[in-house]
C-alpha cells in the first residue's frame, strides 16, 4: 500500500490565498466537527436504544416488578390499548436462552480452543491461513441458512438418530428424558454451537498468536514436547483471552434469533429435559411479534430490554478483558 500511496493524490494547484482567506481557515474546524458529530452518532444511537426501549417497556416492569418479570412463570398477554392487563413472567424464555447458550458454550469452547491450537501450532504453515479463512467463512453464513439447514437436513439426518441413541443410553437421567420431538433445547444448542465456533476460534487464535515466541522456544529447549508447550506454556498464558472469547461467544448465543427460533420448537412451557421444546427470549420476540397487539408488544419490548441488559453485561466484561490484553486487530474485532 505504501509504495503506491504517495503517488495516489495528484499534486494540486495551490489556490491563491486559500491558506489565509477566512473561508479556508474555517474549513479545518468545520471538518473536525463534522466527523466528530458522525462519531457521536454511535453514542446517540446507544443512548436512544436504552431510553426508547426501556420507556416503552416500563409499564410491564411497573406492573410485574423487575424480579416478578424475570422469574414469573406465566405469560398471558392482554388486549388492552392503554393499560397492562395480562400477566408477564419471562422465566420460560429466560430459561430457554440460558439452556441453549450453555449447551452451545459447552460444546463450542473446547472445540474452538483445539481448532485454534491446531491452526497456530500444528497446521503446515501453508495451510494455516486457508484453514482459518474457512472456519471464518462459517461466520459469514446467514443465521437463517443455519436455521433452514438445521431444521430440514441436520435435524432429521444427524440429530434425531443421535438423540435416539442418547435417550436409550442415558434416558434414566432427567436431562435426557424422552419424548424426543426433534426440535428442542438440545437441537437449538447444538446448531448455536456451530454458529459461535468461528468467532471464538478467531479470538483464541489471535490471543495465542501474540504469545511471545521466546517463551515457547525456551520450553522446547528444555526438552518439552509440542503438547507440553501448548498445555503448560501457551494455554495458561492465554487463559484470560480464552475467557473473553467464551464470553463474546456467549453474547452471540444469547442474542441469536432466527436459527434458534426455527429449532427450539416455540412452546411457552419449560422443563428439565433437553429434548423438550421451549422458547428463548429472542425467539419468542420474533415468533409472536407479527400477530401481537399493542399490549403484547409492550411485553415483548420488556423481554428485549432484559435480553439487552444480559448481553451488554457479558459483552462489556469480555471487551474489558480483551482491551486489557492489548489491541486486537482484524476479524476478531467484528
Amino acid at each position, binding site marked *: 500500500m*505504501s509504495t503506491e*500511496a504517495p503517488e495516489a493524490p495528484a499534486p*494540486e494547484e495551490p489556490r491563491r490565498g486559500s491558506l489565509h482567506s477566512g473561508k479556508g481557515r474555517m474549513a479545518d474546524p468545520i*471538518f473536525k466537527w463534522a466527523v466528530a458529530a458522525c462519531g457521536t452518532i454511535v453514542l446517540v444511537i446507544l443512548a436512544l436504544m436504552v431510553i426508547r426501549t426501556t420507556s416503552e417497556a416500563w409499564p410491564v416492569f411497573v406492573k410485574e416488578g423487575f424480579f416478578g418479570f424475570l422469574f414469573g412463570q406465566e405469560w398471558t398477554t392482554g388486549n388492552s390499548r392503554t393499560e397492562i392487563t395480562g400477566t408477564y413472567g419471562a422465566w420460560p424464555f429466560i430459561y430457554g436462552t440460558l439452556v441453549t447458550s450453555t449447551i452451545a458454550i459447552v460444546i463450542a469452547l473446547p*472445540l474452538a480452543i483445539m481448532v485454534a491450537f491446531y491452526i497456530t501450532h500444528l497446521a503446515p504453515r501453508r495451510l494455516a491461513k486457508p484453514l482459518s479463512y474457512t472456519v471464518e467463512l462459517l461466520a459469514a453464513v446467514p443465521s437463517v441458512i443455519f436455521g433452514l439447514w438445521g431444521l430440514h*437436513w441436520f435435524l432429521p439426518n444427524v440429530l434425531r438418530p443421535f438423540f435416539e441413541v442418547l435417550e436409550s443410553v442415558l434416558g434414566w437421567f432427567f436431562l435426557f428424558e424422552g419424548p424426543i420431538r426433534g426440535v428442542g433445547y438440545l437441537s437449538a444448542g447444538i446448531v448455536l454451537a456451530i454458529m459461535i465456533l468461528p468467532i471464538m476460534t478467531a479470538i483464541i487464535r489471535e490471543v495465542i498468536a501474540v504469545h511471545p515466541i521466546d517463551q515457547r522456544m525456551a520450553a522446547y529447549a528444555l526438552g518439552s*514436547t509440542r503438547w507440553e508447550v501448548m498445555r503448560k506454556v501457551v494455554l495458561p498464558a492465554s487463559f484470560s483471552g480464552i475467557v473473553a472469547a467464551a464470553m463474546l461467544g456467549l453474547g452471540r448465543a444469547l442474542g441469536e434469533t432466527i436459527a434458534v427460533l426455527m429449532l427450539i420448537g416455540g412452546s411457552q412451557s419449560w422443563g428439565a429435559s433437553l429434548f423438550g421444546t421451549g422458547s428463548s427470549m429472542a425467539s419468542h420476540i420474533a415468533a409472536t411479534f407479527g400477530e401481537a397487539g399493542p399490549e403484547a408488544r409492550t411485553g415483548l419490548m420488556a423481554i428485549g430490554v432484559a*435480553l439487552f441488559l444480559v448481553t451488554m453485561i457479558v*459483552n462489556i466484561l469480555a471487551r474489558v478483558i480483551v482491551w486489557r490484553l492489548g489491541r486486537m486487530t482484524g476479524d476478531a474485532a467484528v
Partner: protein
Amino acid sequence: MSTMTTTPPRPHVPLSTRPPGASYRRFKDRAATVALTGAMILAMIPLVLIIFEVTRRGIGVLSLDFITQTEPPPRREGGGYAAGFFGTLYIMALAVLMSIPFGIATAVYIVEYGPNRLTSTIRFFTDVMTGIPSIFVGLFVYGLLVIGWGGMGFGTFVGAVAIAVMMLPIVTRSAEEMLRLVPHEIRNASYGLGARKWQTIVHTVLPAAAPGLTTGSMLAIARGIGETAPLLLTAFGSGLIVTSLQGSPQGAVPMQLYRGAAQPFEAGIDRAWGAALCLFLLVLAFTIVARWIGSKASTNG
C-alpha cells in the same frame, strides 16, 4: 550463580538412552496431535455439509423465473422471490448509504483526531455495539420509528435503518484498522506540501486506505444481507414488490426464506432452499471479493 556450583554433577548418560517417562510423554504428544487434528476436521464438517446441502437442493430451483416472479401460495410450485430480491436490494442500498459514510467518518475521527477521551469512548461503545442482539435492534427501531416519535409504520426505510444500525459498528471498526495502516510519512508529505488537515485526510489518507475501506464495507454488506430478525420487526415482510419508501411493509430474501422454511408445504420449502443458495452465493461473493481486495492491498504495502 551459586546454585550452579552446588548441583551435584549428573552421571554421564549416553544420548541414545531416553529419560524416564519419555515414551509416555511421546504418547501424550501423539494423542494430542490426533485429537487436535480431529477437532479441526470436526469443525470443518458443518461448513462442508451446509455448502453441499444448500447447493444440492437449491440448484434445481434456480432459474430466471426465480428472480423475476413473485411467490405463489406455498403449496403451488414455480414462481420465485422477486419481491424479496427487490426488497433486499432496496433496503441494502438505503442501509449502505446510511451506514458506510457515517462509519468511515467515525473512523476518521477516531484515528485522525484521537486518542482523546471522546474517541476512546466511541471506540469502546462501537465494540460493544457489535454484540447487541439483532432482534433488539429491531425492537429499538420499532419503538423509535415505527410506533414512536416518527410514527412511520412498517416499511423499507425503517428496515434500512435497522440494517444500517447493525452494519455501522462493523464498518467503523474495519475502517479504523485500515486508516491506522496508512503510514505517517504520507500524512507528513501532504502537510509538507501545504495541505490542510482536511485536505490531507480527503485527498491523501482516504485514497491510500481505499482498498481496505472497500474490504470492510463489503464485509459489512455481507453481514447485512443475511440479517433477518431486525427486518421481521421493521420491514415486516411482503410477498409483492413494494416500491414505496415508507408506509407499506417491505419484503426481503431472508425473511421470505424464513417464512418458506417454517411452513409445511414441500414447494415452499424447495423455494426456500433456492433462496438459501442465492443468499449464500451473494454473501460468499461479497466475503471473498472483500478478502481478495484486502489481501491485495496488504501485499502491496
